[in-house]
Every structure is written in structure tokens, then in C-alpha cells.
């Protein structure tokens, strides 16, 4: 593939497979460091990571009722990512789009449906890939502080991501994981929802922030940048010092007092 760049496996061992990073459009635009953190974690786990040219997974179209548009975008993604052993996304929501919703966009029995199903099978959210597929149980990172973990809705309920990020976070030396009340409650982001009904969204995030603050955590950790932008923006607007960081950044050891959150 001419527009695909390849990284070498720096663990020295034989590579365990080729992973295509589905970086997600939000990470691409807002926080590239999350993408680099994901690459680092995957490479350390022994995989060769590639980044095919890519855009959005089509979720805004799908959730807005534009099935045809979502199908068009999905076909493109399926073509691009089909050649790899695995597709990994640092987002439960985008991974669930590929894994749970793509096949249903194509008519039953069609070749497109089969291709979507093949892609779905090898698509994973980052922490569940590291934990369930790569068998990772601990990461070499340090973080002196209290973190609280928010479950992104799609990752939790569509992919069953809950235990994996927590187990990996707990393996970090110096860290204390303190659960908030109802970590599984929605943060109020909801994709376009937060733009269409901003006041309702704000109220939902208000409850979430209350639960976050009650833990006295230094860091709010989540696996989805959409949720993080929403919660970080609300924490900042209301003058709270809790830092909102992505689980990949924490696991890759990119977060700490001496490492600025802004890159």
C-alpha cells in the first residue's frame, strides 16, 4: 500500500501480527499524543503497527439516521483495513461502530456484509486488545496519583470493556484507582447530541462532574476522547483542577506531574 507507513517492531522478537491503528477522527484532530501512546503500547506488546490513510468511522452519519452515508463510509474503511491482522482503535465507541454496527449496514448474504463481518471480528478497542488478545497484564509506567475511570458507554455496553482498562491501570506503579459513583453513567457527550441539546448535555455532565469530584482524584481517565473533551471542557469551565486524560496516555507513561498534558 503506497500510502501506508510501517513501524518496526522495537521489541526485537518476532512480530506477533500486523495491527492497523484506527486512530479516530477526534484523536487525529484533537490529541495526536493518544495515537502515539497507542502505537507505543501496541509495539511494546510485540505488534507491528501501521496507519493506513483514514478518516471517520461514519458514526455521526449512522447515529443521525443516515444509514446510506454510513454504509458508504464503512465500505471505504473496510477496503482500507481489510489487509491487516487486527484493527485497533483507542476508542470504545469507534471500535463498536466497526465491530457491532458495520455488518448490519449491508444487506444480508451480500459479499459486502461478509467483508464487514470479517473486519468486525478482528477489530478491538485498545485496552481490550492489549488485555484479551495480547495477554498483557502489566505496563511499565509510573504515576503518583489518584485516578478515577469513566466507562465510555459504547465500549462498556457494546464491547464489554470494563475490567481490562482497570486491571492495566492498577498495574502502574504508584497509582491509586478510586471508583466514582456510577462510573457507567453517561457523561452527556453523545456525539452530535451535545451540540443539538447543549443544555441537557450540560446538566448530564454536571452530575458526572459531581461524581468525579467526590473521589478527590487527580486524574479522570477514560478510553474515549469524545467523553474526555466533554468532561475536560466542563471541569475547566467550572474551575476544577482534575486532569482529563486518555487511558492510552496513562498506560504509555505519558502522564505525570512533570509531563504537561498539552503536547
Amino acid at each position: 500500500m503506497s500510502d501506508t507507513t510501517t513501524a518496526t517492531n522495537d521489541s526485537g522478537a518476532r512480530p506477533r501480527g500486523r495491527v492497523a491503528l484506527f486512530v479516530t477522527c477526534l484523536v487525529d484532530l484533537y490529541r495526536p499524543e493518544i495515537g502515539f501512546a497507542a502505537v507505543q503500547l501496541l509495539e511494546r506488546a510485540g505488534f507491528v503497527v501501521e496507519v493506513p490513510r483514514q478518516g471517520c468511522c461514519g458514526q455521526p452519519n449512522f447515529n443521525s439516521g443516515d444509514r446510506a452515508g454510513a454504509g458508504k463510509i464503512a465500505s471505504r474503511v473496510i477496503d482500507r483495513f481489510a489487509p491487516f491482522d487486527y484493527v485497533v482503535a483507542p476508542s470504545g465507541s469507534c471500535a463498536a461502530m466497526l465491530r457491532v454496527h458495520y455488518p448490519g449496514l449491508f444487506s444480508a448474504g451480500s459479499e459486502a456484509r461478509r467483508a464487514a463481518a470479517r473486519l468486525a471480528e478482528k477489530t478491538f478497542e485498545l485496552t481490550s486488545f492489549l488485555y484479551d488478545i495480547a495477554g498483557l497484564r502489566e505496563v511499565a509506567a509510573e504515576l503518583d496519583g489518584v485516578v478515577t475511570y469513566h466507562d465510555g458507554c459504547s465500549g462498556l455496553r457494546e464491547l464489554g470493556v470494563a475490567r481490562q482498562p482497570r486491571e492495566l491501570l492498577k498495574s502502574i506503579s504508584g497509582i491509586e484507582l478510586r471508583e466514582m459513583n456510577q462510573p457507567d453513567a453517561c457523561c452527556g457527550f453523545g456525539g452530535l447530541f451535545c451540540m443539538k441539546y447543549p443544555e441537557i448535555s450540560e446538566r448530564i455532565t454536571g452530575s458526572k462532574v459531581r461524581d468525579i469530584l467526590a473521589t478527590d482524584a487527580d486524574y479522570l481517565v477514560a478510553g474515549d476522547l469524545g467523553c474526555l473533551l466533554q468532561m475536560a471542557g466542563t471541569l475547566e469551565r467550572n474551575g476544577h483542577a482534575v486532569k482529563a486524560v486518555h487511558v492510552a496516555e496513562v498506560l504509555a507513561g505519558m502522564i505525570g506531574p512533570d509531563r504537561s498534558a498539552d503536547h
Partner: protein
Amino acid sequence: METTSRQFRQLSRHALEQATLQHSLDGVREIMPRIRAAALAERGDFDALCDRARDIRERTLRQLDSYLEAFERRVQAAGGTVHWAATGEEACRIVAQICRDAGAERLIKSKSMVTEEIELNAALERDGFTVTETDLGEYIIQLRGEKPSHILAPSLHVTLDEVAETFHQHHDIERSGPLTNATEMLAEARSIMRDKFLQADVGITGANFLVAETGAAVIVTNEGNADLTASLPDTHIVVTGIEKAVPTLDDVGVLLRVLARSAIGERLSNYTTFVHGPRRDGEASGPANYHVVLVDNGRSEMLGTEFQDMLRCIRCSACLNHCPVYTAIGGHAYGSVYSGPMGAVLTPAFAGLPAAAHLPNASTFCGRCEAVCPVRIPLPSLLRRWRQRELNARPVMDGQRFGLGLWRWLNHWPPAYSLAIRCAARVLRRLSVPGRGGQRWIRRLPLLGAAWTDCRDLPAPPGRTFQDEWRRRRS
């Protein structure tokens, strides 16, 4: 069905400003998930039970007509009459006629969402009958001239002080004296209610299930008022939806178990009553006349469509209690007696999509409703289908259609996409200002972006996209 769902925006803004409502909703958000979870934990097989509940409801809907006919035959054999109402108006007319035939003036009712849906009280009052709700919550909102704000706790939005105030306004104050706490208010309502029960000519109830095997109408309450409503007056009318049929008594056993746990975190509700028909020869009590009014009102049109799954609903309210949107704005904002996720699916079906277009859109798709639904209704998927219909009904030049079309196009042309994202990254960076700890923030965005920055700040992107930076570092 009459709704004010078109005013969803205004209604939800209003709800967000009501401090006492917000306090009640906080209570729902905090307490209901906890008590439901505790009730589930007690039964290791709750998931399996829900699968059975779903299967029972699915099986019923596949042959709804034959189960309803079997139910009708059993009711007739017991001496009752079954009426079929295609619309809400027809149902109201049938009930009014039964009341007239009985020479009735005073009617009592127990809580029923179907009668709220068809606005039975208003119709009966127009016809000159006096109707009294006997469920405490329903009674309170009846006095206040309000609609239910929760399908199980209709007066959730009313504070204790407001209840006292309402009673003072409507009851004889001399006799009442000051009402300072819930116990006194309950005693007050009870003293009023006793006479109403004894004087009533007709009792109207809903039904949670209609058992095809036995002809029983199953009525579940927590206050026991339905039992008095069904047994004291000379005539008992059951008004309920056609989807309430259930094949057998065993099936009801499964549904009752998932209903109470999902609704109130209990093994069973306080009162579960099986009504079989009028008083039999030799029986000392019970009504002389027994009628069941089966209301369609849009339900059969959902059968065989992509919305059929919604007819499995047993009105447990778990989806409301676990919904971030419902617990932010309460039931009245939906402008429909059915609120929360189930209401957002049902209201467009009953009132038409144009009237209720906001409801399926006002969801974060967090999926908690589907996760807690005891009959496993895929609520987010159903909402998404409404969104699809709503989007397709919009004019071609509609802003949202244009935006989605543009996004699809950009995602098909990688160079255009890269350019757009690159531009966005730079522009957003430019708009940012320095904040704490070296992080840059965007405090205000123009145009559409204001919908974000009116409520929250936006972390600034570094200005270079991941894909560009990746290629730069790896080349």
C-alpha cells in the same frame, strides 16, 4: 394522542430551571439504579429470567390475535363483556356508554397509563361524570390538573409542600388542619378516598397482563387501591392495550418477577390481583357487571414493522430511571404521557413523527436503557430508526442533511478530508488562549461551535494532525 412534544426544547429548558424537580430527579438517578441492582443480585438467574420474559412477549406478539380471542372467550364464559376499540376516542365512547347504561354518576379509577394515553378522564368529565383517581400520585396530579411525569410515579415532580398546598386548596381546610408531613397527608388522602370508594358506581382500572389461558386480568399496584376500585362498585371496567396479552399463568409468573425487580427493586409489588369477571352466584361481593375494553390506538400498526419489539414493553420504568436524559429533564419535557426512552419510541408511533421528532433525537445513545430493559427491547436501535425516518422526511436543503452529506463526501476523498482536518486543527489552535498548566483552551467559538462553548470550554488541538505528524516522524 395529543402531545406537546413539539415544544421539547422550551419544555426541557424549563425543566432544567426547576430546582425542586431537579432535586427529585437527582433522587431517581441515585436511588433507582442502586435498588434495582440490589434486587437483581439476589437472584443469580435474572439474565435468564429476562430472556424468558422476552421470549414470552415475542411469542405473544406473533399470535396476538389468537391470544386475545382466547382471552375474550374466557371473559365471556365468566359473564363479562370484551369491547374492541380501534382508537382512543372509540375507547372513551365505549367506557362512557357503559357508565351511562349503568346509570352511573360517580366513577373511581386506579392508575392506568392507557387511560392517560387516551385522555379518558377528560372525555368522561365532558360527558358529565365525576371521576376520582385513587392512586395517591394520580390523585395529586388530578387535583393539580397535571399529566404524569413518570409512568410509575406520576407525581414525581410534585414536592411534599406542594401536595399540602394542593390538599388545602381542594379539601375542606377546617377538617384538614395543617398538614406538615407525609403521614398526615396520606391520612388526609385516605379519609377523602374512603367515601369516594363507597359512593362510586363504576370502578375503572387498567391491567398489566391479560391471561389468554384463564381470562384473568392481572392488576399490579403498590397501594391496593385497584382492588377496592375493582371490587366495591357495581360495575368494573378494565381499560388496557391489546399488547398486554400473555399466553399462560406460568408466563405471568415470569413477567411479574422481572417487573417488580425492574420497577421498584422488589421481589413482588405489594398487590397483585387476578380479576376473572363479575360476581358469581353465591358470592357476597364483587361487581355485578364486568367489561374489558381493549385499546388498539396505533398498536396493531406497529405489529410486523421494525417497531414491533416496542410492544414487548411491560411499563416497568427501568429505562426512565436509568436514562441520563430523563433524569435531567423529567417526564413533562417529553410532552407525552410516555417519557424516557420507551416514550421516545412510542410517542412518534402514537402521535406521528412530525409531532414528536425531537424525542428520538434527544438521546445520547448511551444504551443503559437497553441494558436494563427486562424484555430486552433494543431501544437505541429503535430510536435510530425513527431518526432515519425523520432525516429522510427533511427537505433536501436541510442543514443537517447537508452537513452529513458533506461529511460523507469528505470521508470519500482522503485529500479533501486531510485538508479539512488540517485547516480545522490550525483554526482551532488560533482561536485558543493559554490556560492552567500549559494547556490551551478555546473559550468561545462562533456560529455552530457556540453550541459547544456556551456550555463548556474546548481543549485546543496542537495544530498538527496525528496522521501528518505520524508520517513526518516515520519518514
